[in-house]
């Protein structure tokens, strides 16, 4: 059957007749790769430009529609030796990069102004103790004002806007005291300059903005990096579907481009791309990603199947349906909505600090002014001193204390294979005291593995594994993974739903169902146990049966033990049968487990834990886990999880190991400790500086030194999160 590739959903028409597409490219490692891909593509007729972004591992291609199309470009890259996956840029990413550019501009302006104002300020400080005339000092102050005022008006916008937003919502965030401090420092300085005073605070205000912008930019840069990485992963993982067009032609297109009513062909071994009703064909499907159930379900015409299931034995044709009322997916969506609505907005540590901080500081400033007035100072002096208190307490260190740690911790997690969706997940991860695991695909590997049986000759196993390379059946895939020789037997034929056969050493070898290999089922019944599936191999009179079953992640036991050691309560909540869950829980030493749960029951368990005052970390991958992930305080899901599920997880982890779960908890706890230390450092700084300010002893020089020193101190302290924590491998 002819098969065409339809990539139109990724193609962007920039000019009439010319198109543009972005692709995530796998396997680019060096300068040679860039040249090979770019030269190879620009040589093609019709390609206008190809540019590989090495940092993002993304390729931008422009071409003329008349001469070449997207599918031929993807094929050309494959011929050059790389795999390219069309990429649909997400809105968030575009927003992020626009915001990063804006912040960088603000940073540049603040940096320029800070340097030049400092140049003038140091001259004034030196002049004040030597022979500078009052006129020159005033000139320098006016020049500082000329630089600092427009620069602060421009570079301070990110803070002013956020502060206004918070005030409109009748809330306080860190940006409120920052904005107030900057505005007051500048206003006071202009007034002092106009009255020919000795001190002005232009440098403090602008330096504060510069430091804070550095922190904001680094924070955003880290988020962008993880988002880009996640975006590439999503496009590499993106599922393709085979749509049957009216003429019977088969079109391969991204699953996201399917519409309700399309007819889709799902071959054995493929994942079901969309929810739908089976029109024709019979097969068994593996719904472990949907419900957690590891036993296969038999389906035939009229059955409803869900995206994410794997088709095991026969080809199915289905009609794509929108999620209808009463289906599982509909139920999950309804539960999700409720779970998200019920999730109380947790107050972040930084905002909690700000809420505590702002009233105290403002009250202190007011009391200082009143105190000086009572002590007999002039109103002018009293107000100047009160404003000096506000400037010195301007929360530079406090505002950097938490973001700096978040950036460093997110980087450490990223290197450890954990991709965070948001910075505040770190705080919630650190609070977790109960870990709830899903079983299928979370504690166990997402795809079944060959059960290493001792009684099969290595030679027979190798031949069976090599034959399995020619099959797309999931059981054969598990067997094929163990093959040493990676080339399939020539002339191997796959009989859909039955098995695969080939001539090996002059005799026919067969791999597949027992019947296909000419063996009675009776022989198998004796060995059938638990949740294993079997695949039979027959060659030259020898018959071997391989068991394939869900196996635990390699380090699951070690990670569970390490989590327990750290005082976390553990629990397994699974949608699978009790007799499949019990052995897993027992092998891992998890005493509390529940099986056969529906999504609603999972939420109920989590709600009960919540009402007992526990902070639940939920780790799950199935569609049935999505509401539970949203309901839990914090959630993790493996990269193999269903789309809905990943979207509701606070972080996603990569690889076949469970260690990232432990790493996430360890790094988060360490990060929270550092955040608290940083807040304490900021508090100590204030405890030292505020009495000086209240006493009226703070000069601009002292303000500048104190602010820079405290900012550096908290940043350096945050860098300690980079130190490798002791985590099991």
């Amino acid at each position: 059957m002819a098969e065409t590739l339809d990539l139109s959903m990724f193609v962007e028409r920039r000019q009439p007749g010319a198109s543009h597409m972005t692709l995530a490219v796998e396997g680019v490692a060096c300068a040679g790769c860039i040249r090979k891909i770019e030269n190879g593509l620009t040589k093609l007729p019709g390609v206008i430009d190809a540019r590989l972004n090495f940092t993002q591992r993304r390729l931008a291609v422009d071409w003329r529609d008349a001469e070449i199309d997207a599918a031929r470009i993807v094929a050309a890259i494959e011929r050059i030796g790389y795999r390219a996956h069309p990429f649909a840029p997400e809105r968030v990413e575009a927003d992020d990069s626009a915001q990063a550019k804006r912040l960088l501009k603000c940073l540049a302006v603040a940096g320029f102004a800070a340097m030049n104002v400092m140049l003038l300020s140091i001259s004034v400080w030196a002049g004040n103790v030597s022979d500078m005339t009052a006129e020159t000092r005033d000139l320098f102050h006016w020049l500082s004002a000329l630089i600092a005022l427009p620069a602060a008006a421009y570079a301070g916008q990110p803070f002013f806007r956020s502060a206004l937003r918070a005030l409109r919502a009748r809330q306080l965030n860190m940006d409120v005291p920052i904005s107030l401090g900057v505005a007051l420092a500048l206003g006071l300085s202009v007034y002092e300059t106009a009255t020919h005073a000795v001190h002005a605070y232009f440098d403090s205000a602008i330096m504060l903005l510069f430091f804070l912008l550095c922190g904001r930019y680094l924070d955003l840069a880290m988020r962008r990096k993880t988002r880009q990485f996640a975006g590439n992963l999503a496009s590499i993982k993106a599922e393709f579907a085979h749509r049957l067009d009216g003429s019977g032609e088969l079109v391969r297109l991204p699953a996201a481009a399917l519409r309700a009513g399309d007819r889709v062909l799902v071959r054995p071994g493929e994942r079901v791309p969309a929810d739908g009703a089976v029109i024709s064909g019979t097969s068994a499907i593996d719904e472990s990603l949907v419900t957690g159930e590891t036993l296969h379900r038999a389906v035939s015409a009229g059955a409803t199947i869900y995206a994410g299931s794997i088709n095991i034995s026969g080809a199915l044709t289905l009609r794509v349906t929108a999620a209808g009322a009463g289906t599982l997916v509909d139920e999950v969506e309804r539960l999700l909505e409720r779970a998200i609505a019920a999730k109380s907005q947790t107050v972040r540590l930084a905002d909690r600090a700000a809420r505590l901080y702002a009233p105290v500081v403002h009250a202190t400033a007011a009391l200082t002014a009143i105190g000086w007035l009572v002590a007999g100072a002039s109103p002018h002096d009293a107000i100047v001193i009160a404003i000096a208190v506000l400037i010195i307490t301007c929360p530079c260190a406090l505002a950097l204390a938490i973001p700096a740690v978040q950036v460093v911790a997110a980087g450490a997690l990223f290197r450890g294979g954990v991709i965070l969706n948001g910075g505040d997940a770190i705080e919630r991860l650190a609070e977790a005291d109960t870990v709830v695991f899903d079983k299928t695909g979370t504690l166990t590997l997402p795809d079944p593995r060959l059960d290493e049986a001792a009684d099969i000759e290595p030679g027979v196993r190798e031949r069976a594994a090599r034959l399995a390379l020619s099959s797309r059946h999931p059981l054969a895939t598990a067997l094929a993974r163990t093959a040493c020789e990676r080339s399939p037997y020539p002339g191997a034929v796959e009989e859909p739903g039955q098995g695969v056969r080939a001539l090996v050493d002059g005799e026919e070898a067969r791999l597949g169902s027992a019947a296909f290999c000419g063996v009675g089922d009776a022989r198998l019944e004796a060995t059938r146990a638990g949740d294993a599936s079997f695949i039979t191999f027959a060659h030259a009179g020898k018959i071997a049966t391989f068991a394939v079953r869900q196996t635990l992640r390699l380090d699951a036991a070690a990670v569970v033990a390490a989590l327990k050691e750290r005082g976390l309560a553990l629990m397994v909540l699974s949608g699978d049968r009790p007799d499949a869950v019990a052995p897993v829980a027992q092998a891992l030493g998890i005493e509390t487990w529940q099986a056969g749960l529906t999504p609603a029951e999972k939420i109920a368990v989590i709600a009960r834990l919540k009402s007992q005052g526990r902070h639940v970390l939920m780790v799950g991958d199935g569609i049935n886990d999505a509401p539970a992930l949203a309901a839990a305080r914090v959630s993790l899901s493996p990269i193999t999880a269903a789309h809905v599920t990943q979207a509701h997880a606070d972080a996603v982890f990569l690889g076949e190991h469970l260690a990232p779960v432990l790493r996430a908890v360890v790094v988060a706890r360490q990060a929270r400790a550092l955040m608290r230390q940083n807040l304490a450092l900021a508090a100590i700084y204030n405890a030292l500086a505020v009495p000086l300010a209240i006493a009226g002893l703070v000069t601009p020089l002292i303000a500048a030194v104190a602010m820079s020193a405290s900012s550096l101190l908290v940043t350096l302290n945050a860098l300690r999160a980079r130190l490798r924590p002791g985590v099991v491998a």
Partner: protein
Amino acid sequence: MNVLIYLVPLALLLGLTGLAAFLWSLKSGQYDDLDGAAVRILPDDDLPSS
């Protein structure tokens, strides 16, 4: 101190030139692919092959 009359504007001008250069480089996309710039310098296919 009369020297300040042209030294101060000169200093500011220099600073502004640096700022303008940075903003230009940002706008022309020079920070879009930092790792790429480091490796793109390596292939020497612009040399005549002898």
